């Protein structure tokens, strides 16, 4: 299974934000990997810390955020302790990022051409303006835009959501990064446009061997795109493994509940949907035991007291739950 070399290894990541209302434990303990030429998905509801983990890797946390523990080793180098200067050299050239709302991710005061050439030249001063303009047009064409010259000359406000996202992907890939982090890139787009962007990302993976860390809350997108999946809740990884393991042999109660709650096209509306009761985790005072305990249907005494360790079920399938024993099988 893991013949691909591991590109990014995140171990025990802990991120907290200092707010006037107290310290928010956005990420308690997150560990996941991204292999070369593979798409790793992080799935979770809002407030589960999935986006925060990605921002922490590139040091893009908000002013009051801090990565307190853990490591993010990228091709042998730990990114967390790096200073702003080294991180700046990595951003864009080795790891790039695309964001959720494409319309607001572009600077309204600059034309697309000026934006793309500046991104290219900020990494490599030797590239001339003309060369940068040419490579930008070449990249836009690769993104499936049929009239790149016009796009280069207009302002972001004149472009549609799908078009802006293609420009953002072009900008991200301009300097040939190894890893692309996508933070819910298609959530704000219509379903038909989302399909175009997902196919584009799949093409990048298959044709150019691009490895992607894909963050989303939509299980359909995960099934469509990802090879490995990590399910997050309340800042902790509940379960991670390959797509087949998660979809067909999920062991963690949270994953199972989420999969049952996903509205599927083929089921008619007779029986009510499986609903998960309860309210979101209070990240300022996280529960002592398992974060999912208050909402977990099979919650036991032990769950409320002790935080479960991540048990390895073999073949890369791990889960953090007291009912899951090493080496597979569920101990009831």
């Amino acid at each position, binding site marked *: 299974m893991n013949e691909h070399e591991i590109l990014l290894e995140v171990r025990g990541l802990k991120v907290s934000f200092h707010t006037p209302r107290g310290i928010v434990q956005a990420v308690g303990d997150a560990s996941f990997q991204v292999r070369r030429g593979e798409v790793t998905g992080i799935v979770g*509801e*809002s407030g589960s810390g999935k986006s925060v983990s990605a921002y922490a890797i590139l040091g893009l946390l908000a002013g009051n955020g801090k990565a307190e523990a853990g490591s993010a080793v990228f091709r042998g180098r730990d990114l967390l302790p790096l200073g702003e200067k080294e991180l700046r050299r990595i951003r864009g050239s080795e790891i790039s990022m695309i964001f959720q709302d494409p319309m607001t991710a572009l600077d309204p005061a600059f034309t697309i051409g000026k934006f793309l050439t500046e991104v290219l030249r900020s990494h490599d001063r030797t590239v001339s303006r003309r060369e940068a303009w040419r490579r930008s047009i070449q990249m836009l064409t690769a993104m*499936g*835009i*049929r*009239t790149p010259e*016009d*796009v280069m000359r*207009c302002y972001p406000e*004149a*472009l*549609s959501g*799908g*078009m802006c996202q*293609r420009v953002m992907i072009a900008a991200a890939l301009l300097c040939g990064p190894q890893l692309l982090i996508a933070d819910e890139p298609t959530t704000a787009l*219509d*379903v*038909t446009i*989302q*399909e*175009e962007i*997902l*196919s*584009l990302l*799949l*093409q990048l993976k*298959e044709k150019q061997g691009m490895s992607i860390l894909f963050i989303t*809350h*939509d*299980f*359909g*997108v*995960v*099934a*469509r795109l990802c090879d490995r999946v990590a399910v997050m809740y309340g800042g902790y990884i509940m379960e991670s493994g390959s*797509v*087949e393991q998660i*979809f*067909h042999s999920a062991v963690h109660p949270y994953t199972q*509940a*989420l*999969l049952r*709650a*996903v*509205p*599927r*096209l*083929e*089921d*008619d*509306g007779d029986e*009510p*949907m*499986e*609903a*998960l*009761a309860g*309210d*979101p985790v209070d990240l300022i005072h996280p529960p002592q035991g398992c974060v999912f305990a208050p*909402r977990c249907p099979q919650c036991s005494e032990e769950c409320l007291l002790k935080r479960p360790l991540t048990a390895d079920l073999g073949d890369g399938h791990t889960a953090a739950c007291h009912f899951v024993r090493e080496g597979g099988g569920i101990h009831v």
Partner: protein
Amino acid sequence: MSELLRVEELIKHFPAKKRGGLSVRAVNDVSFTVNEGETLGLVGESGCGKSTLGRSVLRLVEPDSGRIFYRGTDLMKMRDLRKVREKLQIIFQNPSGSLDPRMLVRDIISEGPRIHHRNVSRQELQELTGRLMREVGLSAEYAECYPSELSGGQQQRVSIARALALDPEFIVCDEVVSALDLSYQSQIINLLEALQTERGLSYLFISHDLAVVRHISRRIAVMYAGRFVEVAEAGELVKHAFHPYTRLLLRSIPIPDPQCGRRGTAAISAGSVGIGQAPQTGCAFADRCKWARASCREEEPPLREIAPGHFAACGLV
């Protein structure tokens, strides 16, 4: 099942912002009926006019022309809508945006009765809000909170309680679950379905997510550029979609199962620069349609019945 609401040839155009620009044809000659206790699903991309249609039916947005029959009386002719307003309600997409940030939950829910029956006593209001909150699954302690102290799912329950306060018969649900997380989505949908069976409500359920609409509605209408392109019973529409846009919509929805989710990567390359203005004449979907013929670009195809209860507006019929 008697007919509750019938809408005929509803039209709503927004004047162009820039001088000489094209006026935006948000709702373009739409007709449909909703029976008692039935849910009509309305699916479409953003900007296809589904929200405008939802608001026009309640005359929150004044439609340009058309007739809206509620139990036989035409709402367009009525000057004072206050009486009817009790029976027709709406719930919005953004949970935090649709609740007054400086109002207590208790006052938000009791706003309806306070408007209509001036002389209702505090004690009665207290009892009514308590009952409504229990009905939508909110614990009584939240009555004294501000909306900002509640989670998204709870805020949406407050919106539902507010709509139920006047015992409505018809509720427009405008993207009610789109802003919620997966687990709260199913909680709210189950709540809506329970209320429908309990109170005999009928819904106009608007969403961009066909899977959610398929689950909750009996009949589904697919809308594109201000017009109904296909109307059919839910299962029929999913299994035998006819209109090219509906088929494209069904094909684009990612299936949450790795085995059959792995379709090819035919990246449909983007069209010309910028948001193309829907063509003024002929079928609005002609530019993006693979099977578009010359005739499609001339006259707009009307909604024709291609199978019992299955209507489609396409030139290829």
